[in-house]
């Protein structure tokens, strides 16, 4: 998971393109290299912001608009900063009837974020997903790669608060 999140919209701040350039260099003359390049650059920078997309476009001799088309097509690419902890709330049928909607609300109560949003301190991102594939544990959530099932709303709140206490 991405740990390093770089500042971007902050105008004037220098962005270190070294990692991006190195990745692009590796794939320079490959055909169909766009997706692996985007994946690796996203891993290195946390998400794909406009300056980095421009840079990739220049390096790969492509159009940034075309690359942006690819980025917006795939769910795996992000154009907004993402939190350190990604909270995935399952909104599949089984979890829905078990009240997973309430868990999303709790995330909003705790961190003020809705689906797809990231908290201002870049700690949490909420993602409502269709099905995690663990219907037996409904309602179920994932925080990064850890799964929590059979949740009561207040259990979930407790878990979120524990994460909020963690350093960094």
């Amino acid at each position, binding site marked *: 998971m991405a740990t390093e999140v770089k500042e971007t919209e902050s105008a004037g701040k220098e962005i270190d393109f070294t990692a991006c350039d190195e990745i692009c260099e590796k794939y320079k003359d490959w055909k169909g290299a766009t997706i692996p390049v985007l994946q690796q650059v996203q891993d290195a920078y946390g998400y794909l912001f*406009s300056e980095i*997309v*421009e840079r990739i476009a220049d390096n790969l*001799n*492509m*159009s*940034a*608009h*075309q*690359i*942006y*088309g690819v980025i*917006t*097509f795939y769910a795996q690419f992000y*154009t907004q900063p993402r939190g350190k902890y990604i909270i995935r709330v399952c909104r599949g049928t089984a979890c829905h009837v078990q009240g997973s909607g309430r868990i999303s609300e709790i995330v909003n109560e705790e961190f003020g974020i809705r689906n797809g949003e990231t908290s201002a301190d870049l700690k949490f991102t909420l993602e409502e997903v269709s099905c995690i594939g663990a219907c037996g544990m409904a309602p179920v959530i994932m925080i990064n790669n850890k799964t929590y099932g059979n949740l009561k709303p207040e259990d979930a709140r407790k878990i979120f608060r524990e994460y909020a206490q963690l350093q960094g």
Partner: protein
Amino acid sequence: MVTVKIDGKEVQVAPNTLILDAAKEAGVTIPTLCHDSRLNPFGACRVCLVEQVNNPKLQAACTTPVTDKMEIITRSEKLSRVRKTAIELLLINHPLDCPVCDKGGECTLQDLTYEVGVTKVRFDAKPNDTPVDHTNPFIERDIDRCVLCGRCVRICDEVVNIQAISFLNRGTDTIIGTSFEQPWNCEYCGQCISVCPVGSLNNRIYLFKNRPWNLERVKSVCGLCSCGCTVDIDYEGNEVFRMKESPAEGINHGYMCAKGRFGFEFINSIKRQSEAVVKAGGESKKVSFNEAVEVAVEKLRKVKDTAGADAIAVVVSPRLTNEEAFLAGKLAKDVLGTSNLFSTESEEVYPEATLEEVENSDCVTVLNIDVTESNPILGLAVRHAARMGSAPLAVFYPGYTALKRVAKKFVTGNPDEVRASMESYAAAVAGASNEYSEWAAKLTKAERPVVVFDPYNKADVKIAQDIKKACAKVKVVPAKSKNNSVGIVDMGFGAKCATEFAKGLESGKFKAVVVLGENLSARSVWTKSASKAAGLELLLVTDPFMSETAAMSNVYIPVATFAEKSGSFTNLEGRVQSIEKAVDKGVNTDACVVSAIAKGLGAQLPADANAVRGMIEKEVPLYSGINWDGGVVSYPYVFAGEVAATDGKAKGKGRFFLYPASLRLHSGSFTRWSPDLAKVYGEPMLEIGVEDAKELGIKSKDRVKVKGEGFEGEFLVEIEKKVSKGCIALPEDFVATAGIFCNGKSLRADIVK
């Protein structure tokens, strides 16, 4: 060949022909929406679905190749239903605002809706209400009307290779847009407008100005550069409303550029002159056409009688038609008896390769010119070869151009480095072993190699000639600049060196000068001597506008533009094409002026284009028996003789290398009177690289002084990523910059803040 049956008609077609094309062959029309024969098959709209006998699945005619014995049905009850549904679904989100849509009357979706008979919308989804995007100065984007046929995205990718727009998002959220919703910035060629089947992409110059059914149309040839594109001029009364592509016609295949599509406004400009002006004793007087001609005739007679015919010179602009240039030559030689015929063009280099040969070339080299700006349609041909035909493309230019995306090799650097590289490359083609040997081998091994170069740069001509000498199968393309740069030379205005005219002005040899359409002040070769023309006994200038030179004249006659006359232009391939008169702005043509002067001097010269053509066919051997609608002139040679080696090194001293920038939408002559082009690029701007700008602490839109040996000027700054470090560039053809490049094509200069 395979045999297919379409609606009962049997046809034989090549294997892998698309059903759509086979149907065309059989005389059957299949409705389409997303299809464009110039683009790769796409199959987005499902309007062209057809039935294949013994196959339960419907086939998209625009993407499915035929197989032997295939039987296709294009009209049936089932297909009507399917097509109707396809259109109904498109109409769910498409706003039904046809009465106020600019596309109304020429909209494919409208026509199809009518054809399939959708009379009611069965769905209650509300049309979207997204704000219309006006970030592009020439193209309006109304995303709600978009049917996602993808023609704009595909043409921008496959033909223009700019990819300024793309499909964004996925599924029902898909829209056409730009990266991070940035303002839409591109070459402004407007190819996307030309293929949009609905009113999603509109021409902002034409927007809300007229309705298509009010417009009359003539097919003509664009008069703004030497490509010679076939265009439709749409007009009502005496106003030109738009210039648009003649679909899939002409050497341009229905493609156009920003200049051609959006730069016609000067024709309608209110700044155009309608009355002749005669200056005497420091006073200007508006006079009738006949009076102005009378004054000119009298002065010509006087100069001829007192100073001799050699004191008279005739200068023509490369914008005149062949017929007009021929008449001007007749007037000079036969009526006035002078051999002083001048233009900025020369007969040192003649055209060779055609645009088709460029498109089909298997190895293209572009020497020190940004063809995508100077001759955009030639630029498209180069891109076609490099992209579609995958010909290896090598480009030499001081900064990156739009060809970067398709070039296999792009050599940049400061002008001296680029020159040295080109020389090495030419040497490698001739057999020398150096770093360009590998690239030279690609050229020498190719079957149909093409070299594009700038015929106005002597040092480049030399390199092109060296390459041609070493590899005879190379076909060259001298990228001439103006619409009839080639033709006026054929009509006799290229024999004398342009500098001779400058010398004649300086020395006072010329007492009477007839300038037809040319602006001496904006031509680098003449700009320094132009002021001398002000004091002549006669300076007759014809021009649609009061140009700098016209303002100095003592007899000025306003004349017609290319949309107001008939005649012909010869393009950069040497192809002669007829132009048609569309409108009448109440002014005479240059042909009328020449004819009237001849009459005043007691000679008969016809003004009618057809009559002149008869004379040309008789008197100009190159044009004897020529087809005036697309015939290619066969020239006796490509290079007139051994081009002298010139020192192409940058002249002068200074921190920066200064070279002529690519044209950027227009040169400073006619199109500066087109307000919308001028809004985007109004005055000459100084291009500088990002790093240099940072070092000097200058920002975009700053005004800085450029100083070199013998010139100085203040310009707006434009920071350009593509400009190499240590280089700056200025456009050449503006009055403010002509005085700089008269010192050379490659200079050194300093920037003084």
